[in-house]
């Protein structure tokens, strides 16, 4: 939508075409981007998505669309189109709900909030001024501090707004600094929040807590780590879901277009590293934080082909396994990233051609065995990066061209940002794109994030997504825990 509006502002008439299931989304997007009466036409989604597979099949849909496309460019603008109404954005600060008793008032509150699209579908705790003040006791940060701006509607995430949503989620004040740090991650400049919140694929966030605060607030990092039963894990995740939904003004089917919904949609995958069982330093220390500091990593995972959000590599109590079998499974999975060579076409949006990042959650007993073999986190990253690289001689001519095109497009920065290689990686690729070289399918070793979590036994699993959209932020401002101050 924003692209079409750019052309309009340059004085060129545009007609914007969508599949009809996205019509309301387009209407909201036009409003958000400042041209509510941009000319829009729709094709039947039921016909378009199925028939686009060939020219013959799509012909009836395209022929029907032509007349409305022409009319979109030639029919004079109406009075309504020339006088769009400004969008009302003022909101009531306080909402009052009255009923004959507390139970009825609670029911009425939940019904109202869900009808307003301010809830997640699960029961909410009323964010009364007293409860919000209680929640804010968990941080020394000012309630008016703006933590970030939340897509898709660019709502302001103040500390107070986050606290309101944390109350609704059933969180405790000592969790608030972790929730705020996660929101800093989501609203960071390089985090593609729009995509994880609104894409038609089933992308969703993983939220991982590192450092001493995890244990202090009772987070689970052992058996059942991505599941239910732990107030910290579950309500931190739910607070983030509500914060993103409400502060960003997001709603399924309107602008959150996940066609079949998102995995773990209420609480995301929210867990902590198991530092007690890990043979290595915590992840946040490996990227430069201090050991007594705490941090939160937010990362988009999941997608079209790994909709469950994870791939299990082995371990556990059922099938036999060895450290080698799990390593081989990880290598085999990451090796599929060769598709970024075979499928890439410069200038085209091909999701499977975007380079990936991989988050590996190692079961503690597996990590300990690797440690006994002399692996560190860094050497394991390097091993996987090199083991999955392809000898130049084995690449097809098309694959070599694709890598060259990606390098050129990255230098010119005229491609979708998902496809762009960071500047510091370009020399590494130019160096190996010749006989004797080994061409990596993972853009950089740092794109393999290695965590240790789970009980004993546990499965080692991986989560993956385009290599963008991962941030680790310091937890600070805590008042009720020793860590995170």
């Amino acid at each position, binding site marked *: 939508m924003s*692209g079409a509006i750019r052309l309009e502002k340059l004085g060129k008439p*545009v007609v914007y075409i969508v599949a009809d299931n996205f019509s309301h989304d387009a209407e909201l997007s036009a409003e958000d*981007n*400042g041209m509510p009466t941009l000319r829009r036409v729709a094709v039947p989604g039921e016909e378009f998505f199925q028939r686009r597979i060939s020219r013959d099949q799509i012909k009836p849909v395209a022929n029907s669309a032509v007349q409305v496309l022409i009319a979109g460019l030639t029919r004079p*603008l109406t009075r309504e189109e020339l006088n769009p109404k400004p969008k009302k954005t003022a909101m009531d600060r306080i909402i009052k709900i*009255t009923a004959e008793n507390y139970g009825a008032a609670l029911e009425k*509150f939940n019904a109202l909030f869900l009808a307003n699209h301010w809830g997640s579908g699960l029961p909410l705790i009323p*964010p*009364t001024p007293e409860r919000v003040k209680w929640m804010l006791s968990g941080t020394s940060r000012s309630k008016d501090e703006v933590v970030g701006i939340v897509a898709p509607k660019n709502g302001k995430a103040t500390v107070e707004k986050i606290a309101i949503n944390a109350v609704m989620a059933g969180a405790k004040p000592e969790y608030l600094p972790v929730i705020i740090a996660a929101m800093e991650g989501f609203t960071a400049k390089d985090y593609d929040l729009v995509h994880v919140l609104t894409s038609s694929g089933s992308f969703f966030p993983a939220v991982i807590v590192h450092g001493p605060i995890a244990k202090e607030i009772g987070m689970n990092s052992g058996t059942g780590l991505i599941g239910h039963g732990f107030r910290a894990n579950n309500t931190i995740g739910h607070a983030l879901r509500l914060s993103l939904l409400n502060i960003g*003004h997001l709603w399924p089917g309107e602008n959150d277009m996940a066609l079949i919904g998102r995995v773990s949609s209420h609480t995301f995958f929210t867990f902590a590293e198991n530092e007690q069982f890990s043979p290595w330093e915590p992840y946040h220390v490996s990227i430069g934080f201090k050991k007594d500091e705490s941090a939160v990593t937010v990362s988009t995972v999941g997608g079209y082909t790994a909709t469950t959000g994870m791939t299990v590599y082995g371990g556990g109590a059922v099938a036999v396994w060895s450290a080698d079998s799990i390593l081989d499974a990880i290598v085999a999975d990451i090796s599929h990233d060769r598709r970024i060579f075979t499928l890439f076409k410069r200038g085209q949006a091909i999701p499977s051609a975007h380079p990936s990042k991989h988050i590996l959650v190692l079961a503690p007993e597996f990590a300990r065995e690797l440690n006994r073999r002399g692996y560190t986190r860094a050497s394991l990253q390097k091993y996987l990066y090199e083991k999955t690289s392809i000898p130049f001689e084995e690449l097809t001519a098309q694959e070599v061209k694709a890598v060259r095109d990606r390098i050129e497009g990255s230098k010119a920065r005229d491609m979708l940002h998902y496809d762009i290689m960071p500047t510091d990686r370009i020399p590494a690729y130019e160096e190996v794109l010749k006989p004797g070289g080994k061409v990596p399918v993972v853009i950089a070793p740092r794109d393999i994030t290695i965590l240790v979590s789970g009980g004993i036994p546990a499965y080692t699993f991986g989560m993956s997504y385009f290599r963008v959209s991962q941030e680790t932020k310091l937890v600070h401002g805590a008042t009720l825990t020793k860590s995170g101050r």
Partner: protein
Amino acid sequence: MGTGSIRFVLTRTAALCMCIACFLSVAGVTHAAVTLAVLNPQGEIAPPPVFVPTARVASLDGKKIGIYWNGKQGGENFWDVVEEQLKTRYPSAEVIRYKGPFDLGQAMAEKIAKECDVFMYGVGD
């Protein structure tokens, strides 16, 4: 009805109401309303600016028609048919096809705006 009778009725009515209230209270049935005052969880949004679309053209005859697509699969088939139809209906028009990201960006917009008179813009979902 005399004053004395009215006073009698009012006194008896008041007494009856007090008995009912007392009974209800003993039975645990009260009607004290509860009001929940809660804070709005939504983020404040600055009002977006409002722009008006550009005036339309009278006809596509002789025009350069740009078709912008983000390259999602199958879109080429759709736009091939559209292009064919446009050329049949407007033999003097020229159709130029473009591909790029979801938002083409300001630099590309400025470039292709110089090359075409009108645009059809689609992004595949």
